[in-house]
């Protein structure tokens, strides 16, 4: 029995291949197909730049994920801190040499790809935390020293991303970090204290926000105040979704997006386009796919043996949930407009890369579920 366990610690290639999680794979492929068709629609029913490069990226990163899944979970544990440090380095580099586009310095020109390190940070923070808390005893989690270090780890990238400025991504990084910290066992009272402090300091934070960010928050509360200005996106998005009805206007027949009333329809507002064309049925189906995906990731987390693996899966699953919720709430007019892509669906290489890396770690945890990490 013992021998079997120690023997099964090592897997053959075919064993690994056989233990791939088919449900998760299926979800990813479905999302890949849906997103490709949606991108085709944003190009006005032609195979143009956006759809071509989206499909290409999806294929490349999907294959990459497939191969990364063979890497042992121990490997991800081993490079946990390194990964974080490299991404943090890239963020610092970005703040000096980044490419500025529409008033914000978010990208690094790597010649073959414009990399957005803040997207990678969304994953890096989860790996880093998973490793950190894997090594901590539950008794020590709430010690002051063990609070200061993780907070520093979280605050550094957030400050860098906020200063780009990119409010949306920094909120997503913060939220995924906070969720992992809470899952790891940090006392709930600290979160309450932080939340209260945050509330009190809100007026000061607002005074640091850029005017356009302030405007976005204000228009969220009353989009009709300035229908052609800042409220335009929310109003047009709601019109698009609402006019879709039960079954939608049909593929390639979304007038709102086809006639360019939708802003950023291939990135943050891809769900609006999808929802206009495929209606309530389509939207609910897409949401269901995401729900299955998140459930599956949590399930893999519960089945894997290592604490590192568990925490990463739980953290990553929750992060996906946060991305989906924030993006959808935003386009449905439930939250203010902050830049946040919908995983896999939205156009964007870095976001796709980060998501695929995350998924390959999850897959690795599934394949190496009996492997422990020292």
């Amino acid at each position, binding site marked *: 029995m013992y021998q079997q366990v120690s023997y099964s610690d090592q897997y053959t290639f075919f064993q690994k291949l056989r233990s791939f999680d088919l449900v998760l794979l299926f979800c990813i492929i479905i999302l890949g197909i849906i997103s490709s068709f949606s991108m085709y629609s944003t190009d006005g029913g032609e195979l143009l730049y956006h759809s071509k490069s989206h499909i290409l990226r999806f294929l490349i990163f999907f294959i990459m994920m497939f191969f990364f899944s063979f890497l042992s979970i121990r490997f991800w544990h081993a490079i946990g801190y390194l990964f974080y440090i490299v991404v943090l380095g890239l963020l610092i580099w970005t703040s000096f040499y980044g490419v500025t586009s529409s008033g914000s310095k978010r990208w690094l020109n790597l010649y073959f790809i414009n990399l957005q390190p803040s997207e990678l940070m969304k994953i890096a923070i989860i790996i880093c935390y998973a490793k950190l808390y894997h090594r901590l005893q539950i008794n020590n989690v709430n010690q002051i020293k063990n609070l200061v270090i993780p907070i520093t780890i979280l605050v550094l990238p957030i400050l860098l991303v906020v200063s780009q400025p990119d409010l949306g991504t920094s909120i997503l990084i913060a939220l995924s970090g906070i969720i992992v910290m809470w899952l790891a066992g940090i006392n709930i009272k600290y979160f309450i204290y932080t939340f209260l402090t945050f509330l009190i300091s809100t007026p000061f934070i607002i005074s640091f926000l850029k005017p356009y960010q302030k405007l976005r928050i204000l228009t969220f509360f009353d989009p009709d105040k300035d229908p052609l200005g800042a409220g335009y996106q929310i109003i047009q998005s709601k019109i698009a979704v609402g006019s879709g009805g039960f079954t939608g206007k049909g593929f390639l027949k979304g007038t709102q997006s086809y006639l360019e009333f939708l802003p950023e329809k291939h990135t943050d507002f891809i769900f609006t386009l999808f929802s206009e064309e495929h209606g309530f049925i389509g939207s609910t189906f897409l949401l269901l796919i995401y729900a299955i995906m998140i459930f599956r990731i949590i399930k893999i987390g519960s089945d894997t043996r290592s604490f590192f693996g568990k925490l990463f899966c*739980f953290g990553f699953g929750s992060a996906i949930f946060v991305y989906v*919720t924030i993006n959808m709430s935003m386009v449905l007019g439930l939250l203010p407009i902050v830049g946040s892509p919908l995983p896999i669906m939205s156009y964007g290489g870095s976001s796709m890369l980060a998501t695929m890396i995350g998924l390959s770690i999850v897959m690795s945890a599934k394949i190496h579920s009996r492997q422990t990490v020292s």
Partner: protein
Amino acid sequence: MFSGGDTFVRKLSTLNRRVFILSLAKGIIFTGIVARLFSLQINENKKYLTLSDKNRLREWRLPPIRGQFLDYFGNVIAGNLKVYQLHVVPEDVDNFKALMNRLREILKLSDKQFAKIMKKKNSQKPWETLVISENLTWDEFSKINFYLHDLIGAKPVLSVARNYPYNETFTHVLGYVGEASENDLIRNETIKQNHVAGLRVGKIGLEKTFENYLIGTNGVQRYEVNAYGKRINQLDFEEGTKGQDIKLTLDLEVQKLAGELLGDKAGSISVMDIYTGDIIAMQSSPSFNPNLFLYGISQQDWNLIKSNPLKPLVNKTVYGLYSPGSTIKPIVALSALENDIISPKNTVLCTGKMEMYGQTYHCWKKKGHGYMDLRNAIKQSCDTYFYETARKLGVDRLSLTAKKFGLGNTVLKGTIGNEKKGLIPSTTWKKQQLGQGWVLGETIITGIGQGYIQTTPLQLCLMTAQLANGGFKIYPRITVEKNQDSLEKIKFKMKQSALTAKEEINPIRKEVKEFFNIKDKEYQTLFRNPENIKFVLEAMWGSTNEVMGTSFGSRLKDKKYQFAGKTGTAQVKKITERHRELELKAKDVPYEERDHALYVAFGPYENPRYALSILIEHGGSGSTTAAPMAKKLFKLIIDRHEEREKARSKNFSLAT
């Protein structure tokens, strides 16, 4: 591996517990999103569908085709002409500036025109059509088509525009059209509803009066547009309706002749059917070419028209106020007869002047006419006789008769905007308006149509017509009406009216009529004794057709054409004694001080049908300047009578 097994179990159980809580929260939040989707897409679907349609659909309205004006015989006197235009939609042009510069070379646009186009471009939306040229010549049009390959974005199009084929012939009746102004939109709701950029609307005259009939309705093109307003595809096209055509009572040939006769003299000619009230010609001179106003008149042309001392912009037929001069004499005579002031046998000695209360009143004939009876006084237009008659008659009785016959009131009742009423003075009028008592001397000069009295040429025409038809009220009109009485019916009604006329005079009947608000009968009688009218008409015949008559020189001998009339010479300036002694000829007096020449007439005398009035501003005497024109006019009018009757029965059957 199992080191600190106990704490590891605790760590795991905390993790599992918290993941469970988190999963529940996720489930609730996802349910919330589904609820939101449900509310937007199913509950409020209708609202958002409407909003989405409002977003994507836009209408383009096309200018309606304006109704035409036709003369009595169906000739188009204000029509629509196909014109070649050059349109550019700035949004569809890649390099607007380069295109404009190229067009500027080809069309040889002046700096001013160019600046005007650029200004217009900046004032409208980029997807709205910019009209570069509204009226290309054929040369320019073919040149544009030749270079079209390197004029991407320029669209040569065929369009319709107002056109007045007879140029200045109908200007004062029809008026003209011009681009609708802010004011036009505020004033007229129909224009506002049908307005598109560049729409032409009536600015004056009948074009303005009948705007709501002429304008028609817009065609509508419904397009799907994108967020930037660019047309993506046409969804449907609704054709507009053309405006109504309006048929006028005018006769093109008579109108033309009237214009030719007036030439460049300032004056007016009106011709009327004495039974139907149809206005056959209505000419005011000098005129101008209304086609000049279609695309905005050039400053140079405008200055030329505006600074002309003969006032081409004024329609003298209805806006011009003149002393009627001797043309009033038939009315003075009639009034005196009707009121039993004089009998036709009354004689007055004319010595050339008459002294009264220290004032001297001169007759136009310096030597005097000698002994005059009423017929001779009308025939030879003896002033002295009418001074005496007016003195006996009094201004108030005269004023009543004059008003009955159509003086002092508008003739067309608003068909032509702001028609002048003129002025028929009376003692009460002077008391009320000037606060002074009436002076006998003023009565005396009113008797020869001078002093306060003012009439328009059209009123004089109506007056003559109502005398000529035997003294019955008629209803002048310039448009062919749907429901009109036939000539026989009109004559019958007039007879009936004459039969009951005596009863009308009964004061009790009048009271009853007023009390029950009974309307006046049609073709009301304007006389008490028909013999009086006959007498006046016969005297007018003498004036034209007997030796010594004032318009004897202009007579037509043929019975078919024979007409009867009364000349008039209206003083503009009081003649001083010195001038009288000098016996100045008209051409020696400065233009503005010369007399107005007038002539009113009706014909053919045997069986009258038409009446006319002629006025030549500062034309000298009526008999030398105005009356000869009547001769030519009557020749033509009566020659065209048959044809007009034919057209009349045609129009009539069309109408019923």
